[in-house]
């Protein structure tokens, strides 16, 4: 598991440049451009299970969901940050990508630190020291548990026909 460390105000243009927003929508189209203007090595080297650690206001800017769709598709296990912008936060719920808001864990992280995550328990550990993070309320957790908002919606709509 590799940890990718970034700073404050990582915006959606850095995570997925706006020039691609109307030409790339599927995970395969998105993946090669992930974090293109932030870290040119990321798209090639990222592996399933990797974790991002970042500062304040992660995901600020545009409402584009491609960063979330792409990070989920490449198997990023979680993003640990001091804070998230709200549309990005909702987008992560809608795709079932785990976001951990925990400033102490970010402050504790240094190059080479080990990070482990207990999503169900609401705990993240950095170099063996454990920090709690607030879990989502049950009605919102249900969206993640269903595998994302569209799956959740389909379950709810089951049986409804054009009428």
């Amino acid at each position: 598991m590799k940890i990718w460390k970034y700073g404050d105000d990582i915006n959606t243009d850095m995570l997925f440049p706006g020039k691609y927003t109307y030409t790339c929508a599927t995970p395969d189209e998105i993946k090669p451009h992930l974090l293109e203007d932030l870290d040119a090595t990321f798209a090639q080297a990222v592996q399933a299970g990797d974790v991002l650690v970042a500062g304040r206001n992660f995901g600020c800017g545009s409402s584009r969901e491609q960063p979330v769709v792409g990070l989920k598709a490449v198997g990023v296990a979680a993003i640990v940050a001091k804070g998230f912008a709200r549309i990005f936060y909702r987008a992560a719920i809608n795709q079932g990508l785990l976001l951990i808001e925990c400033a102490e864990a970010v402050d504790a992280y240094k190059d080479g630190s080990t990070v482990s995550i207990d999503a169900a328990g609401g705990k993240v550990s950095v170099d063996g020291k454990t920090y709690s993070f607030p879990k989502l309320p049950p009605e919102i957790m249900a969206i993640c548990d269903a595998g994302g908002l569209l799956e959740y919606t389909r379950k709810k709509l089951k049986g409804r026909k054009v009428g």
Partner: protein
Amino acid sequence: MAQTFAQKVLARSAGRPQVAVGQIVTVKPAHLLTHDNTSAIVGKIDKDLAEVGLVRRDLPIIVLDHVVPALDEKTARGHAKVRKFVEKYGVENFYDVGEGICHQIVVEKGHAKPGTIIVGSDSHTCSYGAVGCFATGIDRTEAAALLLTGETWLKVPPTIKITLRGQFTPGVSAKDLVLRIIGDIGADGADYAAVEFHGDVKNLSIEERFTIANMGVEMGAKIAVFPVDERTVEYLFSAGVKRDQYQALWADPDAEYARELTYDLAELEPVVAAPHTVDNVFPVSKFAGQKISQCLLGTCTNGRLSDLREAAAVLKGRRISKKVRFLVLPASRSVYDEALTDGTLLTLLKAGATILPPGCGPCLGAHQGVLAPGEVCLSTSNRNFKGRMGCKEGEVYLASPATVAASAIHGVITDPRKEL
């Protein structure tokens, strides 16, 4: 218990007597705004739509504005898919290429009614707070689910109260105010929160309120909202919305706020947001003399008639620097029409402007004025992020229409008060 604007709107929509900050409520928005991204949104649920249909024909407002006219075959196919969806499901509110920027259209065509909820798959949906609407951005997946169900969840936000006092001095405008606020509280200063504007709001036109509400998301806000007053009522009436078609809401006088700030408009000065964050705000004098290669006047932040007129007032009888490309995009067909009729566009054209069709244009870096490495754009838009205008080695500074116009004359960032 006293309630904020956000609490009142969410309680009414959820059918509850009142709601508490932090509570999660299910709401049925009056409208869902989508734009060029409608093709991707619909693409997620083609099969579901065939099975259960579109939940309400009057729910979506669809505006093609982001990459218009189509840039290439791929964007043209996207637009074609949107038109097909509109026809197949009888979508009532559709605006094709050339009608204008989605946020301008929603307000100008009378879709944004005070006290209602509008969500949109665009972060600047918060603009409709200018007319007392609870308006906020969502992603494409949530927009897709809304087309099927007509409902979503919202968490009741805490509220920040910003009180405005007095009036702007010449050369200072709403853009300078909102950049100043973002510079002060930071790009995440209002994360998850509602922002209410109080005080001498009557001194601000609806277009000025629009500029301020539009940039709410740049301070992280869920909504940024103004009270409904006589100026709102008059504006809405001109947009075809009568007073009995909406029930405006506003905060109780003793509502509880997470934070309170006050700004004296007369004390403000022209500012710029320097690369690469919107909260990197300084007096224009700090960057006076900075060379620029492109100026952009337009976008959902500053593309309305008053913005174009403000720039034309500075540029009347003048000529822009030969070293600058000056791009102008009226926010809508109606703005274009009025600016053409009253001579504003002729003034800008004679000064050396390139007039582009109504739309988002170069703001998002997809077409119509992408930067080359080393180039600098001074823009009336709302984001100066790295790579925003299509090139990560290009730089974007944000400013008011007057500052952009004055700077275009000299080819360097210039205090507009010197050109009045």
